[in-house]
Structure formats: C-alpha cells, structure tokens
C-alpha cells in the first residue's frame, strides 16, 4: 500500500465520486484539488464552476480566490455570481463541497460562529459566503474534514448551511429543492452517507488504520452503520502521483 497523509486520502476518495460529464461548483483548496484530480484521472469532461462566475477553465494552477483570474483561464465562460447560483437553482449542478467548523448528524454545517450570542460571538468565522446557497441548490453536497467529536457535534451553534435540517422530510418541507442534500462526508477515518428515511449520518466505509470504535469515539453523536461496512479502497499509486505532481506540485493543500 502506498504511503499517504489524510488530506491526500480524503482528496483521492472524494474525487472518485465525481463522474465524467458532471457539473461541480468548488471553492479554493481541497475541493478544487479534488475536482482537478477527478479531471486528470477518470473524468476529463468534469465541468468545474466557481461562484464568482468562472466556468470550465483550463486551470493553470490552484486559485487563491474563487474570483481570481485562474478561475476563468481559457474558460468556456466568465460569467457572474447570479449566473452560477441560478444555474444551481435550476438544477443543472450536480455536486458541491463544503467545509465548516461543526457538522451535526443531519449534515447541517456551521461556518458562522461559536457561542450563543450572535451579536457577540465567542469565535466568529467568515460566514456562509456561497456555502448555504450551494448546499441548498446543488443536487449533492459533500464534505471533506478531519473527524473529531467537537467538530462532529450533537448540535451546531449555528446552522450556516442546510443538511437534512431536523431529518426525515424536514428539508423539503422547509422549502428547499426536492431531492437535494448532503451526500458524502469524507473524513480521515471513514466515509459516511445518510440514511434514506431518517436522514441521519450513516457510516458506509472505514479508512485504512481505523476501527469502528475510532469512528464512533471521534463523533459527538451516535452514528448509524450500513448493513455491510466496506473497507475504504486506499489511494492508488496513479491517483497519488497525479495529485502530487500535477494537481498540487507545491503541496499547498496536501502539505497542510
């Protein structure tokens, strides 16, 4: 088995979910690296979009900002933020990736604040940016994150971006588009999906070197478990090679 760190692992696993011919809106960092890796392996036709307006660029390097010139370098379209968001709202965007400080068992994500007073937060984060929009409007939301029981919390201090809200049918009842929601949560320890009915987070596969106990111990709520838990297929040599040599040669992301 090849040697890899957990960022490399998460990126390689996440990239496998992006099939050829799909559309994905990404931010800077790991999501962008993931989409680039998918493009350079099995999905040459993956259409990458950035929320400031860039569509399907030939990325010469990793962008610093989702609005910088790299995001529309030799692109199909240099459009606008409403253009991208409306394309999501119309149902033409398949995937997005989010990050956050907290996530709960329904995949709700907090990237706004820690504390209980909105006007004087203990810790303030940047806020939604486009995260709430993409989580609301893209078909499938994914997250890559290191797993610990503070981040995987029984209750987010603030729900910035919607997962399945209170579970069951509550997401659709709140007015969010039918059939959308969190799809995969990829951590250093495991791959999670969501239960069809209850919409609670459910472990599908455990990563090399971790046990069921590790996964549950590092989660602040009770996880569901698939009938058959897979062993995550670790990063392949060629995935790692392309990730290291072509996608992120300066190790901006995978060196973190």
């Amino acid at each position: 088995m090849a040697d890899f760190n957990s960022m490399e692992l998460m990126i390689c696993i996440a990239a496998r979910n992006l099939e050829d011919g799909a559309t994905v809106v990404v931010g800077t960092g790991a999501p962008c690296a993931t989409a680039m890796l998918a493009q350079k392996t099995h999905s040459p036709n993956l259409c990458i979009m950035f929320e400031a307006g860039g569509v399907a660029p030939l990325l010469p390097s990793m962008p610093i900002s989702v609005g910088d010139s790299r995001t529309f370098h030799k692109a199909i379209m240099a459009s606008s933020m409403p253009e991208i968001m409306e394309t999501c709202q119309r149902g033409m965007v398949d995937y997005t990736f989010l990050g956050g400080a907290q996530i709960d068992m329904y995949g709700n994500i907090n990237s706004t604040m820690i504390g209980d007073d909105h006007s004087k937060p203990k810790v303030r984060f940047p806020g939604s940016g486009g995260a709430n929009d993409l989580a609301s409007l893209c078909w499938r939301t994914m997250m890559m994150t290191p797993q610990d029981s503070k981040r995987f919390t029984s209750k987010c201090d603030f729900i910035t971006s919607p997962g399945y809200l209170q579970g069951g049918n509550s997401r659709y009842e709140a007015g969010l588009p039918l059939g959308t929601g969190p799809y995969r949560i990829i951590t250093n320890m495991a791959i999670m999906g969501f239960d069809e009915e209850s919409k609670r987070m459910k472990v599908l596969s455990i990563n090399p070197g971790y046990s069921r106990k590790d996964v549950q111990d590092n989660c602040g709520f009770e996880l569901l478990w698939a009938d058959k838990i897979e062993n995550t297929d670790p990063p392949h040599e060629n995935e790692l090679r392309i990730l290291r040599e072509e996608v992120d040669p300066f190790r901006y992301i995978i060196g973190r």
Partner: protein
Amino acid sequence: MSVQLKTGRNELFTDPDPDNARAFFRTKSRELKSKISNAEEVVRTMLKDGDYIGIGGFGANRIPTAILHEIVRQKKKNLALAGHTATHDFQILVGGECIDRCDVAYIIGLEARGLSPNARRAVQSGKIKLTEWTNASLSWRLKAAAMGLSFMPTRNILGTTTFEYSAAKEIECPFTGKKFAALPALYPDFAAIHVHECDIFGNARVYGASVSDQDLAKASKRVVLTTERLITNDEIRQNPESTFIPFWCVDAVIEVPYGSYPGNMPYEYFSDEAYIKEWLAAEKDPEEFKKFMDKQIYGTKDFYEYLELNGGIKKIQKLRAQELLIDTEIGGKK
C-alpha cells in the same frame, strides 16, 4: 402547505420600497455628459457618514482600491457595507473604523490566505452590527433592486440559522404553494466599481468574472467607476454588445491605472500576495497595525503615492507577468 411563515429577526439596513427608489432614480441624471472626477472629490461629495455602500469585484479581485483608501483617509464613519465576499475591501474599511453595520455573506476571511486578525477582533467585539445573508442572497437582493422590485423569491437560506439572523421572510408561491424565501431588494446609497475600460460618460466594459457588478451598478443610487483606462465613446459604439454598465448608472469616472492593486485585475496583473501577507502579519498586533495603516494609507496622499510606496510600475510589471503566465527571466527559467 399552510404553515406558519417565518421572518428573519435581524435588522434590514436599507429601504426596499421600489417607489421610494423610483422617486430617487427619477431625479438621477440621464445626460451624456463628462463625469470625470478624482477620488478626493468623489468621496468628499458623493458619500456621507452613515451611508450604505457596495464595493465592486470580489474582495481582492478587481477592487476600487483608490476609493477604499480615500474613504479611510477622509475618516468616513458609520457606513454600512454589503459584505458580499468582502475580503481585502472589508479589511481596509475595518482598518479605518469606517463601518458599523454589515450585511454579511463572507467577512473577516481572505479565502485561501487565512483570516484577518483585526477584522475578526472588530466583529467579535460587537462593534459592527451584523445581519446574515449569503453570496447568492446579496446577489439576488441587488438583482431585485436592479429590476425595480422590492423582493426576489429564492430557494436558498430556508430552514437555517442564517435565515433566522437575516431580515428575509418566508412566502408561499401562489402557483405551487411551495415555500420560498423572499429577499428584500437592496438599493445601496453608494457604489464604487473598478472596470477595465470606460468612456468619460461612464459607459464601461469589464472582462473576466463579473460577480454582481452589473446589478450593483443598477441598484445603487450613486455610482463611481474607477477605470484602468479611458476609451473613446466611438470605441464603445463600435461594439455596443460589450457595454457592461451604461452611462446612466454612473455619476463619476476616475482613471486609475493599476487601480485594483494590491488585488488581482483580470488579464492585467495578479494580486500582490507578498503585500497582502505583510498586511495580515501587521494586523496581529494592534500597535503594529496602526503604524502600518499610517504608513500605507494615512501617510500617502493618494493612490499614486501608495502604489509608488509599494514598488510602483516595476512591481506591476512583475504582477503582470504573473497574471499572463509570462516567464520574464533573462533567457527564460529553463
């Protein structure tokens, strides 16, 4: 669905009434006359303490730096900001203690570069009143205003705490009975937008991702453009499909070459990442940061002095090579 419809609890900083906006727009000049001005004059005469402002571009991409700095130099106070992926622009305005209200989509961060310690301190202290939104929400609030409406129905922010701390309302679609968010139209008092090219009347062109600037220019009551270069009206008329902002949206035009520095300007120059890192480092210590602001902004007369201080045209040449992926080493790198 006949459920209770919710309302966001936070303050709506602007008036969404389209008839009040129309009453203003009725008085706005539609004359094709020269609007050439300078940053000192524009900020002194077009912007009042307490105004609600919008900034074009995307935080550190295609930003109107000359206007941002001048707002700080003239010590404008109690401004409200549309914080629509506000990064370096937010940093500058918070550095000058100019704003006390913010419609937040994204603040205090600089995307992949990390967080601004000073902006974070200011926000955590409670000195800046925040109403929560999202990037699409602010885009659509501007679009509602650009269309002359009081609200836009949308399918985002529903069901979240973001909605709870917004000033949005839930409504029911009259055709499907489905629940939508109603986002109130946003008509800023003042907007500053940096463009690639415009004529003296304000007919402007923008290249690269345009973010929300077309709607911002239409929605705002007073608009200043800074431009990399002036072009003739003849040139505008040769490609009328390229006009991104028409003259009647614009109140003032200022030619500011390299005017997005230290931000990225598409096809012109890349962002000065070393400088932005220096700024972030200076922010860690409030005393250090005061000195930094004194040197960079209060101590420079205008954008030209500021640019000169930071390397002038020679620096821009380097950033230009970076932007265009040109290898400028003698004989090439390899």
